[in-house]
């Protein structure tokens, strides 16, 4: 691939000026004439209860109150806030068993913070004061917080169509014996010389995006439902709301506001149904609904927690013969995303190593926890924590170097990818491992740390991962883009792709500039208006640059083709004989024959007739490029992290000293954006493995739905970090690019756990690995090496 003009450059990001100066308009900032304010009345006393009485009369009398709404005052149609069901065919939806089981307001509380009723008032204060006057009586029901509890035969059933509270298991029709598998696992284990096995726990991690849920809705005088939201998925939310309120899509408009972080928390609907229901109760008046942080915590999805059992077998020479695994996740109160993560957790497992055989069971059980859904990595961090620790235990028993073993046995080009039957088409993991090992001094440190004494021990550990760029072929991948060339030879991209802060609008603009041959400054990217933009799945699965970029590239190629065809007519040359430089199209080998792009675009719009000849001057018609793009593959990103830690054996405290992340990114369209993704991912990965977990008391009352007692890594907790970008162009990605949105989070999880194993010779089976757990494990073992 030759030199690029815009691709690969650290151009100014489209979003940063507004964000750092405070100019960016988030939904909470939007003010409208006549605006009303909503407040949802939630149940914070129980995690599982029947509503036996709801008295709104006192609330209705409060000053400033416009309406009070109970369950029967809004649509009672059930819905599924997730959009996963819209990414598969109707047939497949039936096979997966996706169901609609949510109500806008409920009379059966299934988790702490479930919605009972709402107030609409003239101010936020008035709405909240009135909400305090709502009287609700409850009949308490037994609380099931784990799969182990809710699967008991005498447990109360969450949904009649999901017996045993088993919301989802891999369906027999697509996955024989309800497992994702190849080979004969039981037989393969007979060949194993070494078997490692354990049951792990992976925590309920929260995205902790900066912006809590903020929405406005207006049911206007044309009968259109307008919703201002920072959703990651405007076009699917448009369709979901259309379905829920039984409106055609032309009567539902999503105005996407600046997204203050997503990480999966805004994948699908969150409080859009509630806000729109409120707005429909007061036609003509905009209604704003703002969540507190504590409320956002329990109403938006988290990562899937649960028990994760795994067993691996190896031959003496290191050959991985079998892997058997079962992930039972604590799904939460509603079905949302029950199928997705239960499958992908096994897909990432299957996509990593060349086991002779593999068998993975993924099951989602209803519990009285808040809902689980998408979170950066979508099952991959859970698998990384378990799989990579067991690989290192196997390596320790085999006496082999963990990096050498991984280089020998990871899957690569031609092997089945995370989706069986779709082989990997590019992989530079070996180079990632070599360069990371070199950068951190792997070999010397592994040797040195074998001989430690004293109370402070150091360790170094590695983990690898495979991921994806878009969810093809499991889920629909499709983005529509059009590019309009203005008369002054600048261009506007029109599409629905979301920028959650990951930099995608910048990189999409770079792809457009490079493809058109225009300067970066000449491109504007127009998003956020669902009336104008064509279809896009939305931001998930590290897809926006790969699929959205593919659409942008194809649309811009279409526009560029039209420019060249017109230039060919004007210059009376064949298209093949033309080239563009500085927005002038030249004839090869004839320096005096050329036409500027601006002449073509101007004549296309301002097309006049020559008064003397009566002929048109130039070629008429404004040029618009268009693409309705379906990617051919999923360009798998691979990556590794090597972590170095220090463990204080007197206190159990773990300090992360250094991380080296080396990722096969295909092509870094904007290296700063890529590094930003890896840095941010590592921060969340370290949090998952060391400090972060949402938890409940026995009654299901959430104990830490705020930053007071949910602890993320802050700037001063972060270690020294080096990012190595391995650019091995993917044959299908735009300019060779792969997705990097999620990859950075994954391997710091396993690498940190393995570094602790290397330091003290103990594996901690439950994440987060807190000092309390480390110290107890050290005491139980009695001796640390």
């Amino acid at each position, binding site marked *: 691939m030759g030199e690029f003009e815009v691709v690969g450059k650290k151009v100014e990001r489209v979003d940063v000026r507004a964000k750092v100066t405070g100019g960016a308009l988030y939904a909470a900032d939007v003010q409208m004439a006549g605006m009303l304010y909503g407040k949802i009345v939630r149940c914070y006393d129980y995690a599982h209860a029947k509503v036996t009485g709801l008295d709104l009369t006192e609330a209705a009398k409060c000053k400033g109150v416009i309406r009070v709404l109970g369950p029967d005052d809004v649509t009672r149609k059930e819905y599924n806030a997730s959009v996963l069901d819209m990414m598969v065919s109707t047939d497949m939806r039936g096979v997966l068993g996706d169901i609609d089981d949510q109500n806008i307001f409920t009379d059966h509380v299934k988790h702490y913070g479930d919605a009972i009723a709402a107030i609409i008032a003239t101010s936020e*204060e008035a709405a909240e004061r009135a909400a305090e006057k709502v009287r609700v009586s409850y009949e308490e029901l037994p609380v099931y917080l784990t799969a182990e509890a809710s699967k008991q035969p005498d447990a109360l059933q969450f949904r009649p169509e999901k017996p045993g509270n088993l919301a989802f298991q891999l369906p027999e029709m697509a996955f024989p014996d309800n497992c994702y598998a190849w080979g004969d696992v039981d037989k393969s284990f007979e060949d194993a010389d070494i078997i490692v096995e354990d049951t792990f726990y992976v925590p309920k991690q929260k995205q902790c995006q900066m912006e809590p849920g903020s929405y406005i809705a207006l049911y206007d005088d044309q009968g259109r439902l307008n919703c201002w939201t920072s959703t990651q998925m405007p076009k699917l939310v448009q369709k979901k709301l259309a379905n829920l309120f039984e409106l055609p899509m032309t009567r539902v408009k999503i105005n996407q506001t600046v997204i203050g972080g997503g990480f999966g928390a805004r994948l699908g609907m969150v409080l859009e149904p509630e806000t729109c229901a409120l707005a429909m109760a007061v036609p003509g008046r905009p209604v704003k609904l703002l969540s507190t942080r504590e409320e956002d915590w329990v109403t938006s999805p988290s990562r899937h927690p649960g028990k994760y059992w795994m067993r691996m077998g190896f031959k003496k020479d290191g050959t991985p013969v079998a892997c058997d695994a079962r992930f039972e996740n604590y799904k939460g109160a509603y079905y949302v995303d029950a199928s997705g993560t239960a499958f992908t957790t096994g897909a990432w497992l299957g996509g990593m190593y060349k086991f002779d055989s593999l068998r993975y069971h993924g099951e989602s059980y209803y519990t009285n926890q808040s809902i689980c859904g998408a979170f950066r990595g979508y099952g991959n961090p859970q698998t990384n924590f378990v799989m990579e620790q067991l690989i290192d235990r196997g390596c320790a028993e085999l006496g082999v170097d963990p990096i050498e073993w991984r280089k020998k046995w990871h899957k690569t080009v031609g092997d089945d990818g995370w989706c069986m039957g779709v082989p990997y088409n590019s992989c530079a993991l070996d180079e990632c491992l070599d360069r990371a090992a070199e950068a951190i001094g792997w070999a010397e440190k592994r040797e040195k740390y074998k001989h430690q004494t004293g109370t402070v021990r150091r360790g170094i550990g590695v983990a690898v991962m495979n991921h994806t760029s878009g969810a093809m072929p499991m889920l629909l991948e499709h983005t529509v883009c059009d590019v309009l060339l203005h008369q002054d030879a600048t261009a506007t991209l029109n599409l629905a792709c979301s920028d959650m802060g990951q930099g995608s609008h910048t990189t999409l603009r770079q792809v457009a500039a490079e493809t058109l041959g225009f300067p970066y400054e000449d491109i504007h990217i127009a998003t956020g208006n669902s009336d104008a933009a064509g279809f896009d799945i939305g931001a998930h699965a590290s897809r926006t640059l790969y699929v959205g970029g593919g659409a942008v590239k194809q649309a811009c190629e279409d526009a560029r083709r039209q420019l060249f065809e017109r230039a060919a007519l004007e210059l009376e040359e064949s298209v093949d004989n033309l080239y563009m430089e500085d927005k002038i199209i030249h004839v090869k080998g004839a320096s005096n024959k050329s036409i500027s792009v601006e002449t073509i675009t101007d004549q296309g719009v301002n097309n006049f007739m020559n008064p003397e000849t009566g002929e048109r001057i130039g070629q008429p018609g404004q040029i618009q490029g268009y693409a309705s793009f379906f990617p051919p593959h999923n360009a798998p990103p691979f990556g590794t992290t090597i972590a170095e830690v220090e463990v204080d054996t007197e206190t159990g405290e773990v300090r992360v000293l250094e991380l080296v992340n080396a990722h096969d990114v295909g092509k870094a369209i904007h290296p700063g954006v890529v590094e930003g993704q890896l840095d941010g991912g590592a921060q969340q990965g370290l949090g998952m493995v060391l400090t972060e977990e949402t938890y409940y008391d026995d009654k299901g009352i959430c104990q830490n739905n705020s930053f007071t007692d949910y602890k993320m890594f802050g700037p001063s907790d972060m270690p020294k970090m080096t990012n190595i970008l391995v650019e091995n162009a993917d044959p299908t990605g735009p300019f060779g690019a792969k997705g990097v949105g999620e990859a950075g989070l994954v391997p710091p999880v396993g690498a940190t756990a393995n570094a602790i194993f290397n330091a003290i010779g103990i594996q901690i089976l439950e994440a987060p690995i807190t000092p309390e757990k480390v110290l107890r494990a050290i005491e139980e073992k009695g001796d640390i090496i």
Partner: protein
Amino acid sequence: MTSRVMRDFDLLLPESVAEVVDLLTRHKNNAAILAGGTDLLIALKFDYAVDNVISLALVPGLAELTFDPEKGLVIGARVTIADILKSPEVRENYPALWQAAKVFATPQLRNTATVLGNVLRASPAGDCSLALLALGGSVLLKNSRGEREVDIDNFWISYGVTARQDDELAMAFKIPPPAAGQKSAFRRMTRTTEDLSKISAAVSLQMGGGTCQTARVAMGCVGPTLVRLPGVEKILEGAEISPEVLQEIVAATAAEINPIDDKRSSAEYRLKVAGVLVKRVIGQALDNGGNN
């Protein structure tokens, strides 16, 4: 559950200490004092309700931090944590307090929160408060009848409850001048760097002729209030601080504390690491105050 909306209250803006005292006499427990406000404003969004908030913003003479080698340190009611960090005298003479201020909350909160507010909060997790308990000193209180000083050893009654009467304004905290050979230090453990303490320790040791003459040893998050460890102090006093003595202290510490399980840690863990923390904070004090 928190709220986005604060309780209604009257904000009172007195311009002298006398006016503050007058307002307190009138409103008693139906008034809260606003200095830094970092605890109060959050409480007002939860379930704490008072009708009057008395701001000290316009009251002169309360923002002074003064050190006199003869008289010691006086910390006025509006002195912030950041003011402590800016003071070379505090760093030199009272390392425990300076170290507590250094790790206290976040830069934004340090610029706003006051030292005296931390003492009045009467939390067993107060960092600057713990340093003050180790250093010793008293709270200067004033009401319409006059002034009194309450020794810090007698100031905290129980969780969130102090010896201050409803009509008293806490004017200042006074620390005696450092004795010859006085060394002090503060140390804590947290879940992440920017966090409340899950267990903390501070010491002030008067060293002379290679032995410890007097000792004040204090711990946080091991009981309903910050506590002193008299048994550990007794081991230290008159002793050369040898590895054997430190081992004895590690073993003795757990018997002097009564921690609970809470969201920041467990009783079991606190009992296990308390002695280690005390051992380390003593080492830190002897090592040039640990200001490095």
